[in-house]
């Protein structure tokens, strides 16, 4: 079966630096794939490349079999690939409702009830300025804004970063819940434990390339994961 999202040998070179080298992974329809790795190994660059903020210098990205490598970010969003990016990137000068309307694009507020049912905290703050939300609420707004488009692929870049343990649990419960609604999710995380609990498969990136990949269940006990996060080099057999 064609995966909903396929990354095929993608390389990214910015200036003289190779940020990504020959990265390949497949996100099956309805699946959750985790990308793990420590700071600065290229996880966010990969997410930006998928969303068209960066242009891959080699390889291909396919969505339901269609090549989207050269498309611009708005064309990629129009195909239903939505990202809750690093740093949240919400519109802080606007209200929560306006953020969600903009997120809905052509659908407008059609998904509002669904998003509010996932994030009741946002429902109470629709007319509040987005900049005045707490960090956790901003993260909810960021994910909620992406869900307003009914995405076929949801990309989550460090959704638990900087959140209190209780909120981290909330976010990961939410990821399982939206998967049960049929969404396909690609998640970048530093919190490997939590990510491996929800993911089907995982890939570990180091130095811009994938060094370990496999079923999440097997990787959870893999000593090399801990090593990768401690900055040690992973020994690839």
């Amino acid at each position, binding site marked *: 079966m064609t995966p909903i999202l396929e990354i095929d040998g993608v390389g990214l070179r910015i200036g003289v630096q190779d940020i990504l080298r020959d990265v390949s992974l497949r996100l099956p329809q309805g699946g959750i794939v985790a990308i793990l790795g420590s700071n600065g190994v290229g996880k966010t660059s990969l997410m930006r490349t998928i969303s068209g903020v960066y242009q891959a210098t080699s390889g291909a990205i396919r969505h339901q079999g269609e090549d989207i490598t050269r498309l611009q970010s708005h064309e990629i969003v129009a195909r239903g690939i939505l990202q809750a990016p690093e740093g949240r990137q*919400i519109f802080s000068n606007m209200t929560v409702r306006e953020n969600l309307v*903009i997120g809905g694009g052509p659908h407008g507020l059609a998904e509002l009830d669904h998003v509010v049912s996932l994030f009741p905290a946002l429902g109470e703050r629709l007319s509040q300025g987005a900049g005045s939300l707490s960090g956790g609420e901003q993260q909810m707004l960021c994910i909620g804004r992406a869900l307003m488009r009914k995405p076929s692929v949801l990309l989550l870049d460090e959704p638990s970063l900087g959140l209190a343990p209780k909120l981290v649990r909330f976010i990961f419960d939410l990821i399982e819940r939206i998967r049960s609604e049929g969404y396909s999710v690609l998640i970048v995380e530093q919190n490997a434990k939590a990510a491996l609990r929800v993911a089907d498969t995982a890939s570990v990136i180091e130095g811009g390339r994938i060094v370990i990949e496999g079923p999440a269940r097997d990787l959870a006990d893999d000593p090399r994961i801990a090593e990768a996060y401690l900055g040690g080099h992973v020994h690839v057999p």
Partner: protein
Amino acid sequence: MDPYYVQQLAIGLSLGMIYALMAIGFTLIFGVLNVVNFAHGEVYSIGAFAGLLLITAFGPPLLAVFLLVLAVGAATGFGLERLAFRPFRRFSDEASLKSRAMREATLMSSLALSIFTREAMELVFGSEFQTVPLDYLINEPIALGPVTIVTGDIIIFVAAAVMLGGLQYLLTRTATGRAIRAVSNNPLGAKYVGINTNRTIVLTFVIGSMMGALAGIMVGLYYGAIFPAMGFTPAVKAFVAMVMGGLSSIPGAVICALIIGVSESLATTFVSSVWADMVAYSFLLLTLVLFPQGLFGKGRDRV
């Protein structure tokens, strides 16, 4: 109150509205790109000349002149973005979009285009005042009791108010306007929600230039003075209004433009009209010294 002051107040308000129309062009463009468009004054002159050419060639009703000038302004804004701004926007990530190099490059390119356009107009039309057909001058006096204003004051005030109201509606109630505000607030975030940022930037130039061109023809018909360098002074005043208003606040720029207009108009009571220009510069100086964020500038999250 002395009717004289009421009269000067009315003149000041229409003058302020002209500055406001110009200031919006600056503010919108500064909002989405963080750059100052130095060719904005030429958009004003082009608007005035386009209107004058139409008047001398066909003599259409005034409303038709205004509509055509708006169209010319739109085309000018589109061309301006293509020639002076687009070539410097090769990379689309946040860092390059708001980088200093990009800001300085477009500062020079828009200044170059401005000089080129002005010189080209002087070559074709000469640098002196053009003759405006008398029927089209909007300076019929209207006596309101002891106060006398002219038709132009009303036309300028109404036309500018319609444009400002339209802009407000666009920015708050339409998807296009929300896209402009989104790009202005967070250009990278705008990409993630699927906004076509390039198209939004072009649109911003189109809207800003429509307002600038309309301001140009209205002033041209008000004073009967249309010449290639006419855009310089109002552009400077509008620039001051933008800085006073806090760089990217539209209401701030409009209010400050009105303050400048009224102050200049009242100042002519006390000093010669040549010195009235000093008012705007004094405001600029005071703002920069006392309110570096502008009177209406919020704590900005990025510069």
